[in-house]
């Protein structure tokens, strides 16, 4: 195998890890709240802009006398987007659930769609369509082996993503709060009966989604820069991933993200790089045709 193909596979895995971060938040929110969050891509965008504002933008736009080191700005950006997620739950989604109405999820979905447009055009009118360059996490190219070199920022993004995925899996499977989240996803009334506050679980799900999308947006910001619709393509891929992995399946989302990353990279090499973003849709159509419950999805057993 030549180093070009190897580098494509490694790059595919790197993207897969980032995709997994985005897809995890989306799937957790969907499992707990039954809401497909169409503004998830804008959570990602906000992560990138926050990182930019803290590292380079603050100094450039407001002539602040200091810049925050990128590595410090990352957790701050994650926290900002997590708080934004909580605010969206509290301000926009919760009222939909507390007022008695038919099919609240559908109203909530339209709300998140509106929020997505609002945030994109909000960014367009306030900061403009320009691509912004935040500070770098790890400058330069790193030598891996032989002819394989990788950008430091990509390596940093991959390593941090892997850590965050591991932490998320531990949180969900290894802590009481995580088990309560799973329980709420599987039977909301059952969770309430044992004493879990389902509204608190909504808040935790949105905070987690914001945290992970904010991380993904920040980690890729030095690689792909930041602009108003930067979150569009990644979030569409995240949707493909949760269908491929099985709606609501956490391990499914991680595995499917890695598969999609590698498929995209290899298809770009062997077929055409111009169609890079199309392969995700081909995967989606294939899954829907041949395995509609996804790789790890559980077929509902209805009573």
């Amino acid at each position, binding site marked *: 195998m030549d180093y070009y193909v190897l580098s494509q596979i490694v790059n595919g895995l790197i993207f897969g890890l980032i995709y997994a971060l985005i897809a995890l938040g989306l799937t957790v929110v969907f499992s707990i709240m039954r809401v497909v969050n169409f503004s998830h891509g804008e959570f990602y965008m906000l992560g990138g802009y926050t990182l930019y504002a803290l590292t380079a933008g603050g100094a450039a736009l407001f002539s602040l006398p200091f810049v925050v080191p990128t590595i410090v700005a990352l957790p701050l950006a994650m926290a900002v987007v997590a708080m934004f997620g909580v605010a969206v739950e509290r301000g926009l989604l919760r009222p939909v659930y507390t007022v008695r109405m038919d099919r609240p999820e559908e109203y909530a979905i339209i709300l998140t769609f509106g929020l997505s447009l609002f945030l994109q055009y909000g960014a367009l009118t306030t900061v403009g369509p320009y691509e912004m360059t935040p500070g770098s996490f790890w400058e330069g190219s790193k030598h891996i082996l032989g002819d394989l070199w990788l950008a430091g920022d990509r390596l940093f993004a991959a390593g941090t993503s892997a850590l965050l995925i591991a932490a998320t899996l531990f949180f969900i499977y290894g802590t009481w709060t995580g088990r309560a989240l*799973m329980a709420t996803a599987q039977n909301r*009334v*059952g969770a309430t009966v044992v*004493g879990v506050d389902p509204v608190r679980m909504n808040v935790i799900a949105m905070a987690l989604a914001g945290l992970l999308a904010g991380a993904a947006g920040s980690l890729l910001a030095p690689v792909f820069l930041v602009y108003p619709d930067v979150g569009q393509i990644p979030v569409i891929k995240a949707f493909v991933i949760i269908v491929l992995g099985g709606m609501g399946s956490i391990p499914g989302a991680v595995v499917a993200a890695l598969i999609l990353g590698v498929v995209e990279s290899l298809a770009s090499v062997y077929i055409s790089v111009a169609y890079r973003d199309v392969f995700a849709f081909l995967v989606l159509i294939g899954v829907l045709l041949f395995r509609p419950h996804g790789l790890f999805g559980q077929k509902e057993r209805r*009573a």
Partner: protein
Amino acid sequence: MLSAHNIVAGYVDEIDILQDVSVDAEREQITSVIGPNGSGKSTLVRVICGFLHPKSGTVTWDGTDLTGRSSHDMAGLGICYLPQERTVFPHLTVEQNIRLGAWTFRNDKARIGRELERVYELFPLMRERRRSKAGDLSGGMQKILEIARGMMIRPEILICDEPTVGLAPIIAKEVYDTIERLKADGLTILLVDQNVREAIRVGDHVYVLEVGQNKVSGTKSEFETNLHDMIKDWLQI
């Protein structure tokens, strides 16, 4: 004593499903609430368990006011609610389901171990199936699992809403036997049921609701003799 007094409640402003209903459940007894479809039985337990806030009336447990408390506070107050629909976590194992019953004292590892052992002694079948996925159990076993999970908190009250609806008669009998066994262990039980015969058989005290109002109430013996006439009366034949 668990008391619901003068409850008026409904899901929309104009329609009151419950129009002034009062029920008292004595300690360590089974109180059955029966009535035809649409009489408001399920609405009554939803009000008692905090899933629906009443427009007026009070709910108290031994003098503690429960009116308007949140549904997720009930486990912490020692109240175990068994809703009509299935509430097991289908993709978790039986043991994971039961352990989640310990949510209100989740940081007390020693206590969780003790209670789990006690629950397994009460329900030996659950120990046998502890590694099965809850969703793979039969409907009756899922109901028993729900009761087992609820027993983790050592509740003082068990509130059952039609626990045997949709179950085969032989399995339904097992559920009623379980309820009677729990009463013998000192639990206060409020049983809402459409299975009139069983509800009267296990009940110490029986209430009959009709279109959101108390119709009659009395001890089990009063009902056993009049059952035939009463049913005729409900069906208006």
